[in-house]
């Protein structure tokens, strides 16, 4: 009984982890850039939802739309200013560039919002199914996560820009030769990646209090999830998120909670050793 309720809680959370990881995996898959500004963008998504809710009285779930748009634009800006010029440089350059963006956002965020925990005071209560008590906020977050994943999938597979993104991910040179404007596609991918991060942040903000530093742990989880699911594969990221969320729900029922990272990162190493391309990764 306790097992099932813990697993449910974990899986519901896993969907949101999945969205955050999809953002990271998309950016890596398309441009092989490790985006270290991922965490702070998640935190900005949290604050975006918070500000829309507290200042404009906008329902936090409706606020996801402007937050997504804001995430997309922010992605364009970060790409244009910090990533574009170093895209062909060695990995370390783009790593450092995004790390710099990470520090800038955290610094500005600390100055503006301080590091006090903020909370979206919007409670939907919870649903009772037998012995299961599921907070509505988590259920809606899951729904949001599924919708965004579906939308991303449709976009990538059935629209021209989506196909262009996949083409560039597959082989940038070849895509350029086919007349695909690669820098526009790269900017779009980066924008979509940060958009997903911001949305994930917005979803998390509906059930956990947060500070400007809260994105860090989710960024770390995103890395594990990306490796689990296969770098560059959005569906794999969702699967990885579910696995990680499930583990986080289940492990504490058997052992002290401090073992969670041991098992998570143990799995991380195991996957890297046995199937480095991840569960759904390309061969």
């Amino acid at each position, binding site marked *: 009984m*306790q097992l099932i*309720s*813990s697993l449910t*809680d*974990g899986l519901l*959370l896993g969907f949101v982890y999945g969205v955050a990881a999809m953002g990271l995996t998309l950016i890596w898959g398309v441009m092989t850039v490790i985006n270290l500004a991922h965490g702070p963008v998640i935190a900005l998504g949290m604050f975006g939802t918070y500000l829309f809710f507290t200042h404009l009285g906008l329902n936090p779930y409706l606020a996801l739309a402007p937050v997504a748009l804001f995430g997309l634009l922010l992605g364009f800006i970060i790409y244009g200013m910090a990533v574009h010029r170093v895209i062909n440089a060695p990995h370390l350059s783009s790593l450092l560039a995004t790390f710099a963006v990470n520090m800038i956002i955290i610094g500005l965020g*600390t100055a503006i919002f*301080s*590091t*006090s*925990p903020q*909370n979206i*005071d919007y*409670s939907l*209560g*919870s649903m*009772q199914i037998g012995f299961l*008590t599921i*907070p509505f*906020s988590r259920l809606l977050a899951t729904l949001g996560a599924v919708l965004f994943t579906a939308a991303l999938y449709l976009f990538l597979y059935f629209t021209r820009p989506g196909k262009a993104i996949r083409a560039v991910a597959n082989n940038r040179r070849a895509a350029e030769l086919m007349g695909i404007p690669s820098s526009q596609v790269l900017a779009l991918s980066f924008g979509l990646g940060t958009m997903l991060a911001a949305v994930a942040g917005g979803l998390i903000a509906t*059930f*956990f*209090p*947060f*500070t400007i*530093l*809260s994105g860090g*742990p989710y960024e770390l989880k995103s890395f594990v999830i990306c490796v689990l699911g296969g770098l560059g594969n959005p569906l794999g990221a969702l699967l990885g998120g579910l696995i990680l969320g499930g583990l*986080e*729900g289940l*492990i*504490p*029922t058997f052992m*002290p*909670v*401090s073992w969670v990272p041991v098992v998570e990162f143990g799995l991380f190493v195991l996957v890297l050793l046995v199937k480095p391309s991840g569960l759904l990764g390309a061969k």
Partner: protein
Amino acid sequence: MKSWKLNAVILLTILGLLLPAAPSVFAAEKTVVIGYTASRTGKLNVEGMRQIHGLNLWIEQVNAAGGVKLPDGTVVKFAAKDYDDESKKERVQELYTKLINSDKADFLISPYSSPLADAAAVIAQQYNKIMITAGAASDSTYKKGFSLVYQAYTPASRYLTGALDLLGKLDPAAKKIAIIHEKDKFSTDVVNALKAYGESKGYQIALFEGYDSGATDFAPFINKIPADANAVMGGGHFADTSTFAKQLFEKGVKAKMVALLVAPPEPKFAELGDAAYGVIGASQWQPEAKYSAEAAKKAGIEWFGISVADFDKTYKAKFKEEPSYHSAGGYVAGLIVEYAIKKAGSTETAKVKKVLDEMNLMTFYGHLKFDNSPKAHGLQVAHEMVYTQWQKKDGKLVNQIVWPEAAQTAKAINYFPR
């Protein structure tokens, strides 16, 4: 024209030179530097900022009242020097050394929280400086042989035990308690003492688990709470405890009592809305506290400093926020220094230390007395906790004192059924 300008400049220069020296004609003035680090940023920033506010208010008031006059005619004024420790223990020792060596701090106030204060205490002792700790409730700091560190807070070992007494009153049939706590020094000290006290009272500790500092998802722990637990206790600091309270509510926990550390007495806790309702907190001080000069006189204890009402009023006027016990803790840390310097008639460490060792004082913050045995030197032995509960009054959340009965502003209610 030119010479007129020149004369004016000379005159102003002479005046400028004379002015700062002028008071010295009457009395020598000495500025005592109070050094501390504060958690202006990082995870302890809510509690840390209130502590700074309290301390700054004291400095402003003591200086405005003319400072402290010593028997040799010297007037002691106070100035603060502080750095942001980012809520990080690693920064503390370096910064306190800097405060003492470069900024020439005469007295020290601890950073907020036990681990940070513990780190600072080593430096204070090493450089022979007196340090008053505020927001550092862990007992263990005072059992390490420090002789210059004094605790303003009720120690952790007595932090939540009163809540169990309250539970006995609220539900005499209560048997099962679930304890979920942050795995830091302070919270662990508190719950270990709570567990021992509970077991001695015949309670069954049905769950006893710790979570990492900075945890956000408490669902795994909440799922582990037995359905028939009468009380849920524990928590840690503001950020994690308020999240914990929110999730306890969302998961529909059916315990008669929820008593948590640190967060519930903070006015900001009310932002949780319905999730705050019925939650009991352990507070070092509340604005409704009934400490007064008359009460002190009746008890035969010396009274010193501002009244509760004046503290509440001046604090609100200056910072536009309700004072919490963290604010009061910051203020009283300064007040203790002021009292000790005044009584000692000196700012020398040895003389001030002697006063502090023998101090038995009532203030707006309550009764203060330090253990002066070598075994637990500096440990607070007189100050008492009060227990607060978020209740509703005219549809609005208000924090009431529910325990001890003598200080009650309202009767305790059940967390569930609500």
